[in-house]
């Protein structure tokens, strides 16, 4: 089955790329954009038919590798 993970910076952690994107959007025709936070996602194909087991495994992956919990949060979809 396929599991999607979204990793984003925690609230309050400086996101200079998001800031640069927001300023660029403001300079285009999107003056009403007040904040952009950039993140990343992973599509993980896992050979496991039990959804609960698969998601538990993906949770371990997030904690051990995919996200750095000092600055990032993860969401498993």
């Amino acid at each position, binding site marked *: 089955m396929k599991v999607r993970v979204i990793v984003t910076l925690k609230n309050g952690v400086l996101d*200079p790329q998001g800031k640069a994107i927001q300023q660029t959007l403001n300079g285009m025709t999107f003056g009403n954009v007040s904040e952009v936070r950039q993140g990343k996602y992973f599509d993980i194909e896992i050979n496991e038919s039990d959804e609960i087991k698969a998601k538990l495994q993906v949770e371990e992956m997030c904690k051990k590798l995919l996200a750095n919990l*000092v600055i990032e949060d993860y969401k498993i979809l």
Partner: protein
Amino acid sequence: MKSSVIIFPGSNCDRDMDVALKKFGFKNQMVWHNDAKIPKSDLIVLPGGFSYGDYLRCGSIAGKSRIIKSVIDFANSGGLVLGICNGFQILTETGLLPGILQQNKYLNFICKNVFVKIKNKENKYFKKIKKEVLELHIAHNEGNYFCSNDELKSIEDNGQIAVTYCDHGGNEDEKNNPNGALKNIAGIFNKDKNILGMMPHPERMIDPFLSGEDGSLFFKNLIESL
């Protein structure tokens, strides 16, 4: 004194480090990341570079490589582990050092000489260095040190800040903070001070004709302290 420099795919300061260590008397050996064991060493160095192309997060993939278990065991038994630049990023990703190195505040790759202030000399890395401020070289895109407020308090309380960015007179202000690092932090220790991670490259400052000599002071002290 024996040292080992670990080479990861994408390391590019490994040979400079080898030259520097040998110049000051270390018997250095190069160790491949996919080896299982590190030969007997008094010092392990994780060099600068772009291990695994900086994929995912800088240092994150190297932090799970085969050799790392031996590095962690060595560090936990009190052995000296030095991580420079990408090596520092790897040490934070393994959890041997707290915090993380984020992208530089102004999104630029910085390559220049900087001054750093030695904040703690009660350790083998800086013990006999007489100077308070060193001129070293930095070259990085992710050197913006960050940690939680609780971690910062614990780092400060335990004297774990090793070096901070400053001017030639030792003023650690925002003007002399090249990358936005919390409290101008350029390098930190673990609690026991046997592990040091820092962004500046002492191995690039060992020749008076090419660069400067403050890196020499670092390596001379290191071999004398061991």
